[in-house]
């Protein structure tokens, strides 16, 4: 087996409002480098909740989370932000582009925050990523001038900018029509196959899930497959 990039050990989570409801119980799983994983299950089974815990954004859980073999438990907010910046790329159902900025600047933002490279180098990288995704012509446009499918591709480019260890997607095709959904899925596949990018995608679309390397299926807060 390849090097483990993301590992969950007995992760549980409950909501206390208004009565105690357990949404995740004893989730244990691991994702190796280069895997293309689908996290599926019915609506309300806890798959998104699990993703946000794995993404370090949700810190209210029991159990242990390891990213790149480092435990995320009891890390400070600023340290977790740094981990997200450096090691995780996000694609959400909604694109969350900043309308005030150009496409290029949107893609560059996480890279500028990381500040590992100079502004020029980040800009060059961003153009590279846009080229890979076939939207380099849109670089200078404002984010609100793009179509839905284009926006989602820009969001993917933004997720890639710091060459993250893993890309997490929460229903990334949920807002798109069939054609654009296929388009985005093909991009994920390309990233996985050509660039050996690790991906963890939450989806309820079984037809997509079936085309991925590995499916983790959830029901009522447990992994069943």
């Amino acid at each position: 087996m390849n090097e483990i990039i993301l590992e969950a050990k007995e992760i549980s989570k409950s909501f206390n409002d208004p009565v105690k409801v357990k949404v995740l119980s004893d989730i244990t799983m691991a994702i190796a480098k280069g895997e293309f994983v689908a996290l599926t299950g019915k609506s309300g089974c806890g798959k998104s909740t699990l993703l946000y815990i794995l993404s370090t954004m949700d810190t209210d859980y029991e159990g242990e989370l390891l990213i790149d073999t480092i435990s995320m438990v009891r890390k400070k907010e600023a340290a977790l932000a740094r981990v997200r910046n450096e090691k995780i790329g996000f694609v959400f159902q909604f694109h969350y582009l900043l309308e005030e900025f150009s496409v290029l600047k949107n893609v560059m933002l996480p890279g500028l925050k990381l500040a590992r490279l100079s502004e020029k180098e980040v800009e060059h990288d961003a153009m590279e990523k846009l080229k890979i995704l076939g939207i380099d012509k849109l670089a200078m446009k404002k984010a609100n001038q793009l179509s839905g499918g284009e926006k989602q591709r820009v969001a993917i480019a933004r997720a890639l900018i710091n060459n993250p260890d893993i890309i997490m997607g929460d229903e990334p095709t949920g807002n798109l029509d069939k054609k654009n959904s296929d388009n985005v899925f093909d991009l994920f596949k390309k990233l996985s196959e050509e660039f050996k990018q690790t991906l963890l995608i939450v989806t309820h679309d079984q037809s997509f899930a079936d085309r991925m390397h590995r499916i983790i299926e959830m029901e009522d807060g447990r992994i069943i497959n």
Partner: protein
Amino acid sequence: MNMKLIGSIAKALLLARWKQTMVAAIGVTFSITMFIALLSFMAGLNDLLDGLLLNRTAHVRLYNEIQPSKDQPVNRSAIYKNDYNFIHSVKPAAARLQIYNSGAILQALKKDNRVLGIAPKIITPVFFNDMNIHVAAVINGIDVKSESKLFYFNDYITEGVSGDLEKIPNSIVLGKGLANQLSAAVGDRVQVSNISGEIFQLKVTGLFQTGVQELDKTQSYASIVTVQKIMGQPNTFITDIQVKLKNVKEAPAIAKEYAALFEIEAVDIQTANSQFETGSFIRTLISYAVGIVLLVVAGFGIYNILNMMIYEKMDTIAILKATGFSGRDVQNIFLAIATSIGVLGGALGLLLGFGLSAIIDQIPFSTASLPTIKTYPINYNPLFYIIGAVFSLVTTFLAGWFPSRKASKIDPVIIIRGK
């Protein structure tokens, strides 16, 4: 670290909402403008009112008071030592108003390096005779040069030249009210009789107006030599020594010291005019209070606009946090927005405040009581501008602090999952 990036994000958010930003900045600008203009005007007014009296008043005035001797012969007598001695209606002996040994005192004062300058003076009551009318008034014998230098004598001369008092023998400068009573103009001659009834002819070389009517009706100035002549006194005769100090706050202590040293009456400016300082203090206090209230109101404006901006930009905050910006970074972004509103609005306010003061400074303001004042008084004290700048920064920072803290605490999961 990352200050450039945070600055560029703050700038983009600001420009995206430039109308709201403008409104917030204008609020700060307005309050700083009013703050500067108000304080400059108030301080100018204070200086004017203080100057009206204090400029013309000696910090320490030395004089001889005619009073009955406290030490009566019967008290010295050994025979009556153990008795109670009641003496009624004690009258002063024919004491002189003159300051004894005035030359030596003047020499000693000149050597004292706490003293800015001294002006000797003779004050004597006289009658001005115009046909059958006798007007009681006072002649001040002055040393024109030191009087002008220390007490701005020149400022109050409305007609004629003060220097003529020294050049033209037997000349006099009349108060305007007094001149009207005598229907005397510059160049005319007036008759003066001293207490003994001797009559002198004096030439009017100028008129003065102090703004205090009572003074203008009863006062006149002549050179010391002229007054000594009228009184028939030798040239060492003076009745007052006016001392101006380098530091006016030392006046009470120095007055006491001189009184003991020269065995003379000495009164300091604080004792003589205590009500003036109180008035100035209250006026300054009121203008500061109004200025600060204006700034606080502007601060609430900024608070509101930032709060609104944060609600509108929830998505932006969420994605910034998701992609690796910490709560601290988000807080810094909104603090940068608040302080740049403060800096821009404040700087503009300082400029406009200066402009408004300059305009007020040009507005004509003439009153009979203040002959030297032609426009409204303004004090361009740099301290007001420093206070204004500091206040604008502090209020905008505080107004930005609370909303930006809220922004830093936003949980991105709630925003993202809520979509």
